[in-house]
């Protein structure tokens, strides 16, 4: 007991990098082989149960998606033409595609924080692999969160759905800027969007690149429902995230 009290006091006095951080590294090296396999086992089990309940919803969704696919194939061919045209114009202007310059590092999800404490993920890559605090974490081109604690061989991601998370975003269609905040219960909310560009259900939200910490154009989600009234100076709305934060196994970190 005395040892614990002394340790707790030392923990307050001594900076994190000299006591807590090395301790965490040692602890992670010992425990992560077991926890990562238990996490994966648990994740697939919970995934199995949620899949059963989703079967009905999926069959309904299938028929509407088939119709949507036919429309998208048509739209895709048009977009390919536009992309080609755009490429030629960009080359003529001497512009580069930002995404091509980005370097991605793959990492395994080895655990997650309890939701009553924080919405976080634990990754098996750290500063030894070139990771640093603040780097964005994605799956596909969908933003998941930012690295908040990076140790030598593991790191922690603060998910965008965590109430402590704030991200500069914009509406892809209207280019109206806003601030994306996480809410308890895996929810997202966009705030501070000017009334001049009315928010509509289904509009896609992407990162704006403001502040320089996140690259521009990472997909976040779409507008689900409006929260603010027309009399307010700024608009706010609930956002439906595209990423499935519950079942993540492999993620990518963008080196910025």
């Amino acid at each position: 007991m005395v040892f614990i009290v002394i340790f707790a006091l030392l923990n307050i006095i001594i900076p994190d990098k000299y006591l807590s951080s090395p301790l965490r590294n040692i602890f992670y090296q010992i425990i992560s082989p077991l926890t990562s396999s238990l996490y994966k086992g648990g994740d697939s089990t919970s995934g199995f149960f949620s899949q059963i309940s989703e079967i009905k919803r999926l069959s309904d969704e299938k028929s509407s998606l088939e119709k949507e696919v036919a429309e998208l194939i048509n739209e895709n061919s048009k977009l390919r033409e536009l992309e080609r045209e755009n490429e030629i114009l960009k080359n003529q202007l001497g512009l580069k595609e930002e995404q091509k310059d980005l370097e991605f590092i793959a990492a395994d999800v080895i655990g997650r924080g309890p939701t009553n404490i924080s919405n976080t993920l634990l990754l098996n890559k750290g500063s030894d692999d070139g990771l640093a605090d603040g780097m964005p974490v994605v799956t596909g081109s969908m933003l998941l969160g930012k690295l908040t604690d990076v140790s030598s061989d593991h790191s922690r991601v603060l998910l965008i759905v965590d109430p402590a998370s704030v991200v500069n975003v914009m509406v892809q269609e209207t280019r109206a800027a806003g601030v994306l905040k996480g809410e308890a219960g895996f929810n997202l909310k966009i705030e501070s969007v000017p009334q001049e560009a009315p928010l509509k259900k289904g509009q896609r939200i992407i990162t704006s690149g403001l502040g320089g910490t996140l690259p521009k154009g990472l997909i976040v989600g779409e507008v689900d429902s409006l929260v603010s009234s027309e009399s307010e100076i700024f608009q706010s709305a609930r956002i439906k995230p595209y990423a499935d934060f519950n079942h993540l196994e492999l993620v990518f970190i963008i080196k910025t």
Partner: protein
Amino acid sequence: MPYIIFFFLTYLVIGFQIGLFPAIEIVGGMINLIVIILISTFFLEIEKEGLIFSIVLAIAFDIYFYLPIGLSVVAVLIIYALLNIFRQKIIEKTNYFFIASIIFAAVVIFDLILFIGNSIASGHFVFERLFLSLLPDALINFIIAIPLFIIIQYLIKILAVYRIIDVKKSKIKVE
């Protein structure tokens, strides 16, 4: 040999608490072995061993989830102190439902302490998070309390047979 088995058991329990249970949260509720072991061992009258085990588990919990180290230990000690204060009343009426109810209350205390401590450390007081997780947490532990209590009781018997822990004959009869 006893130490090896004890170490292996601790390693496994820590693995379950920090690796498996956060991954299988049910509507935001997570099984809390720290509290369940503390309460179960209190009722089985091997409270000192149970307290040490819970503290080890609590330290691992803090380290793994980037909580202020010692916060969960404070929660464990407060619950243990409360159990001691009400010891006489607790011993008088003991049945499975009562144990589950005590675990329900202890999980609420544990979550509240963690919420306050973590909010002070991080500077973010998100009460919504507490409201969303407190009841599911307490309920899931209330439901799982009895099966786990029986497993712990059985494990202690095995450990006692192999003289890994020294168990006095329990005065409390759980029905």
